[in-house]
């Protein structure tokens, strides 16, 4: 049996979920034995193999056109898509800006913030991604497994990775179920 290929990426998140993933410490070696870890934000390869991977893991919500592209690319290249962490599962902290709207959030951050001088302006370079409301991953593409947590506990991440690496679908419940 060939090792299952696992790839991950991040979108509108804080990278804390990936930090929590690194927090599984030496168990990372065990996962690396069981699975073929491909493109991730913390490995050299940056995009999941065009030939496809078995498991795709996405951290963060979807807050602009660039995130959408990442989400669709991962979905199209993986068999099992994992929404990793509260932002991917619910929208998380970034989704708070939906309460006031994108424009007001930009205005507050780039123009009105106390730390800005009077030259502050909202970036408008056409090459920048187009912003949208922050969405949970499942609002953009179908998701197979939700792993909530802000961030998910390393033990939960280890459990999830191990199950996936060994070809089983993890069950997120009881002790493994935490939304924050």
């Amino acid at each position: 049996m060939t090792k299952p290929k696992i790839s991950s990426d991040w979108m509108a998140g804080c990278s804390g979920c990936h930090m929590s993933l690194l927090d599984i410490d030496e168990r990372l070696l065990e996962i690396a034995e069981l699975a073929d870890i491909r493109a991730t934000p913390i490995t050299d390869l940056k995009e999941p193999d065009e030939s496809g991977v078995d498991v795709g893991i996405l951290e963060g919500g979807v807050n602009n056109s660039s995130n959408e592209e990442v989400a669709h690319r991962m979905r199209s290249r993986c068999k099992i898509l994992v929404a990793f962490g509260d932002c991917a599962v619910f929208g998380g902290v970034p989704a708070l800006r939906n309460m006031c709207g994108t424009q007001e959030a930009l205005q507050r951050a780039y123009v009105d913030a106390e730390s800005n001088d009077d030259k502050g302006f909202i970036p408008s370079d056409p090459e920048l991604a187009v912003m949208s409301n922050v969405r949970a991953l499942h609002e953009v593409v179908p998701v197979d497994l939700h792993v909530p947590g802000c961030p998910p506990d390393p033990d939960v991440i280890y459990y999830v990775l191990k199950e996936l690496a060994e070809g089983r679908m993890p069950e997120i419940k009881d002790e493994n179920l935490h939304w924050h």
Partner: protein
Amino acid sequence: MINLTINGKQIEVTEGTTVLNAARQNGIKIPTLCDHPNLTPYGGCRLCMVEVKGMRVPIASCTLSAANGMVIETDTAPLKKSRNVVLALLFSERNHFCPFCQVSGGDCELQNAAYDENMTHWPMQPQWTNFPVDTSHPNFILDNNRCILCRRCIRACAEMSGNFTLGVEERGAATIVVADTNVPLGQSTCVSCGSCVQVCPTGAIIDRQSAYLGHDKNLTVTRSICHGCSLGCGILVHTRDNRIVKITGDYENENAGTLCKSGRFLPLDERRVRLTTPLKRVAGQLTATSWEDALVTLSENLTPSKGKIAALASTRLSVEALSAFKALFVDGLKSKMVTSVEEGRPTALQSAYAEQNGSSIEGKLDTLRTSDCVLLVGADLTTTHEVAGFYIKRNLPKGTRLIIVDPNENGMDALANINLKPRAGTDAAVLGALEAAVVKDGLARGAVDENIVSLHAALDICELNAEDVTDAARMLAEAVAPIIVYGKGLTAAGNPGAMDALVRLANVIGASDSERKGLLSVKGEANSLAASLLGMENQLEVRDEAVYVAVGDDYVSKRLVEKLANAPYLVVQASYESALTECADLVLPVSIWSEEAGHLLNAEGRLQFAEAVITASENVKSNLDVLNTVARELNVTLNDDWRAALTKRTSVVELESK
């Protein structure tokens, strides 16, 4: 009894039990968010739906009365699916993002319910609507974004404190919880009892004092008794690292979870400066010293004046401490003037009456809770003994009548059916007038006293109009279970005629008879009744003698400071710096209510034990310890049996120990 089957289990419950409570009593968990065991069922959240054999659709178990032969299932696949949908709808309604919520991680009933259903996500996103956040209240924050509209807070406000401040505005998804007519909570009719904080299942009502100081699982809970007043409400003290994080009402005690701000919030808002070491006056200045030196100084200054010491203690001290205090000064040092800081103003009059009468005359708080007509005399239950006021207020919508006799403005005036505002100092005449009016209308239920006053004469004295008094008299006489609640306003003046008039009125309206005692005085501080039973209720007169004041953690009145400021030698046993400690010659630092264990005897004669919940700092001793140490230093042997000491006088209310 009713027999029903839940999940195949045969269950027997009393008639009138809801299916939800029947399940609870038998260890079957049905999830619910809006239901609370101490509040009227509401049927709002739809989480407790069950299948009843023979019924077409699932039905809410919290509002369904158990009936004979019912066959109920609580955990079928369709029910689980329905719960999932209900929870998803609740989550998607507002801002229920857990990571930045104070109660997330164990204290949120909404989150816990989702965990129980193994929900990893919710399938619908919120509408991203902003709801108002009200931060105007000093004790808590109301965040409508976290609200699930279970209306527990609204029911608690009405059913526990009888305050009816909280309600809802708008309809459907736009519904929000508001105070009064949507005014900021801080400017509303809220009395800060905090019942809403205690029952809120989510993070919608946040207690400012305990927020972010730990989840319930991190806190140690100790069952104790509130020291705020003589009602002795049960409290749960939540501590962490020798610090009180919050205080909540004890549902198991008589108060059934209800507290007022003095019980819930004020003990955590202590601004006074704590005394941490003995102080003695050296060259006019209070100077820190050791306990050894303080005790030597004490015996040097008190021994020569044996028999010439005035001693007074706070009625917040435990029964043990008060009894030891009395044994030390009355029996040991033969002091003529041993009293409490209350000087008997809330208790002496009725105690003297009971003693003369040879039996108790007062009833229990439960008589108040179940009364249909309350005559309130000389007591403002919105400033002290607030929970007794709640017991009255919560019954008003059910038709309980309230008549207030108070020459001063009373916080409950607006709620009264009849307000009698007599000329100050004429309470006895008002009571006499009411009695005369009852008799005149031929409504007297008991024997009519031969000393009855004439209605006209009485009305002339108290300057009330005949119509109001006659209406009040009728209301009282026609009530099924009337009660007269009285306070310091009536007793402080020390007019024995007022007590006679009170008892006669109680008899004539049928409040008190051979079976029922419809009289109740709210008394003073936590151990007011105990101090009274120990005979510590004389008016303080200080002559040229040393004075020992065990003030404990009590506040010191200006009046008292003025009386004591010129004492030739003043010893103050206190927890906090005050105007009194400033003029003391010797200050002995003692623990506060939460740091020492002891008994409290409440206004209805119920003896309760209050546990020590935290530890005082090293140099601070308990009140009882200090008294024992002082006794040893002064060569006084304390043979003190406080239980026996309490029974030496006839109590105004029957004593019961728990």
